[in-house]
C-alpha cells in the first residue's frame, strides 16, 4: 500500500506527457470545426460554439480565394498507390535474392544500396530534374512514381531481406530437393509466407510517399499534378490567413496516414524497427 502515491504520480506524469502530444490535435480539430466568423486567435483554445463543417468544405473544394485540396488529394492517391505496389514487388524480389542467393559481392552491393537510403536527396535533385526532363516525365505523376520507386529500393529491399532471413532453411532445402529452382522457391515457399512482410513494406512506403514533400515540390511544380503536401503548404502560405481552413486542410492531408496508423499500428511499428536496420 506504500507505493500508492508514487503510482498516482507516475500516472499523472504519463497523462501530462499525453497532453503534450495531444495538444496539436486538439487545436486542429477544434479550429477546423469553427466557422470563419468564430475563428478568433485570442479564443483559439475555446471549444467551438456551433458545429460547422464549412472549413472542410472550403479546404476540399476551395472558393473565396482558395484552391481546394480535393484534386491534390486525388493526385496523391494516383501517385502513392502504384509507387507503393511497385516498390513492394521490387523489394520482395531483391530481398529474397539478398537473403537466399549470396552471390559474390552481394554484401558490398547491399551496403552500397543502403547508403542510398540515408543520403540527403539534395545531392541528387539537380541531375534528377535533368533526367526526368530528358525522358519526358518531369512535372508528371509518373515522374514522381518513378522517383519514389527508385529511392524506395534500399528500404524495401532491407525490410524484405531481414524478413526472408527468418524463413527456416529447411523449407527452402525441401523445396530445392523437390526440384524447385530460384524462382520456384520464391513462388512456392517465400511468396506464400510473405504477407506480413508485404504489410510492413506497403504501410511503410505508403506513409513515407504520402508524406513526402521534397520530391513533390521539386518534380511537380505545376499545380495540376501537385500532391497534397505541396498544396497544403501553399494553402498555409497564402496571403489571407484563415486558420480554420488551414487546420481542416492539414487534418485532411493527415487523415490517410493517421488511419493507417490507427488500424494497422502493429505493422507500422515493425516497419519502424526495421527502418533502423537491425538496431
Amino acid at each position, binding site marked *: 500500500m506504500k507505493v500508492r502515491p508514487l503510482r498516482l504520480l507516475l500516472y499523472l506524469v504519463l497523462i501530462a506527457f499525453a497532453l503534450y502530444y495531444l495538444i496539436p490535435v486538439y487545436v486542429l480539430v477544434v479550429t477546423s470545426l469553427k466557422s470563419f466568423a468564430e475563428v478568433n486567435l485570442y479564443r483559439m483554445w475555446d471549444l467551438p460554439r456551433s458545429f460547422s463543417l464549412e472549413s472542410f468544405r472550403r479546404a476540399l473544394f476551395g472558393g473565396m480565394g482558395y484552391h481546394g485540396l480535393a484534386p491534390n488529394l486525388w493526385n496523391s492517391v494516383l501517385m502513392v498507390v502504384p509507387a507503393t505496389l511497385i516498390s513492394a514487388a521490387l523489394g520482395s524480389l531483391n530481398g529474397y535474392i539478398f537473403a537466399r542467393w549470396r552471390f559474390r559481392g552481394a554484401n558490398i552491393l547491399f551496403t552500397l544500396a543502403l547508403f542510398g537510403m540515408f543520403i540527403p536527396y539534395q545531392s541528387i535533385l539537380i541531375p534528377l530534374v535533368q533526367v526526368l526532363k530528358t525522358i519526358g516525365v518531369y512535372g508528371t505523376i509518373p515522374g514522381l512514381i518513378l522517383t519514389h520507386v527508385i529511392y524506395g529500393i534500399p528500404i524495401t529491399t532491407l525490410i524484405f531481406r531481414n524478413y526472408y532471413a527468418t524463413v527456416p532453411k529447411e523449407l527452402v532445402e525441401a523445396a530445392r530437393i523437390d526440384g524447385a529452382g530460384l524462382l520456384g522457391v520464391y513462388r512456392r515457399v517465400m511468396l506464400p509466407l510473405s504477407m506480413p512482410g508485404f504489410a510492413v513494406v506497403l504501410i511503410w512506403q505508403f506513409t513515407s510517399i504520402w508524406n513526402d514533400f521534397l520530391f513533390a515540390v521539386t518534380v511537380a511544380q505545376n499545380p495540376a499534378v501537385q500532391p497534397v503536401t505541396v498544396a497544403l503548404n501553399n494553402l498555409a502560405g497564402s496571403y489571407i490567413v484563415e486558420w480554420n481552413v488551414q487546420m481542416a486542410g492539414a487534418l485532411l492531408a493527415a487523415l490517410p496516414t493517421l488511419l493507417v496508423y490507427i488500424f494497422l499500428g502493429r505493422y507500422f511499428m515493425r516497419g519502424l524497427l526495421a527502418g533502423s536496420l537491425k*538496431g
Partner: protein
Amino acid sequence: MRLRLKLDAILSVLLILPSALAILLFVYGFIGFTGYVSFSNWNRLVPDYSFGGTANYLRLFQNPRFPITLRNLGVFTGLFVGGSLVLGFLLAVLLDRRIKAEGLFRSVYLYPLALSFIVTGVVWRWLLNPGSPQMGSTGINLLLEMMGLGYLKTGWYTDPRIGIIAVAIAALWQMSGYVMAMYLAGLRGIPEELREAARVDGASELQIYRFVILPLLRPITFGAMIVLGHISLKIYDLVVAMTGPGPGFSCDVPAYFMWELTFRANRFAQGAGIAIILLAIVSLLIVPYLRYSLRREVEA
C-alpha cells in the same frame, strides 16, 4: 544439378541487375554529377558545365547566410537528437512499470510519427505564433498566460534568439515517440533476472539503470542516434511549412538554402556545393555505421 545451380546463380544476378543499375545511376551517378556541377560555372538558368574550380565553395562561405545555416543545423541537431533520446528514454522507462492502458499511452506518444512534417509545421506554426503585445497573445503563449505562466512567453520563431529552437520543439514532438518505442522494445528484451541480481548485490534502482540497463541498451541508443541524426541533418520540410528562413535567417538550414539557391535563384553550381557539403556531413555519420554493420554481417 550443378548446371541448375549455375543457371540460378546467373538468374539471381539478372534479377537484381535492374535495381542495382538504378541505384548505381540514380544514387552514385547523380552524386558524381552534382559533385561536378558544384565545380562548374552553372549559376544561371541555362546549364553551363565549364569548369569553375572551387569558386562556388568560396562564394558560399563568403555569403554570411551559409555559415548561419550550418550553425543552426548544429543547434537543431543537438537539441532534437539529444532531446528525443532523453524524452524517449524517460517515456519508455515510465511505461515499463506495468502501466494500465499502456497501449493507449504508447499510441498517443507515437502517432505524430505518422504525420507529414508539412502537417506538423502548419500546426506548430500556429501554436507557436506569439501574437502581439497590442492585440494580445496567441497559441502556446496564450495557454501559458491562462495557466499563470505568462513570464514564460517568448516570440518563438519570430524571435531571432530562439529561431531554430522553435523548429526543434516541433521536431521533438514528432519524433520522440519513435525513440520511446525503440527503447521500450529494448527494455522488454532485458531479462528480469539481471535486475534482480543487481538488486541482490545492493544496487539502487537508479544504479541499475545507470550500470545495467543503459549499457545493455547501447545498440538501441546508437541506432536511434543514426536514424534521428540523418533526419535532422536533412531537415527541410518542417522549416518550409513552419517558418521559412525566419528573421535574420535564424530558422534557416542548409537544405532549405540549397533549394532556394538552386530552384529559385538558379544558382545551380552553388546549390550543388551546399548539397555536397550536406552529403559529406551525413556521410561522416552514416559511413562508419554502414561499415560497422557490414563487418558484423560478414562475421555472422
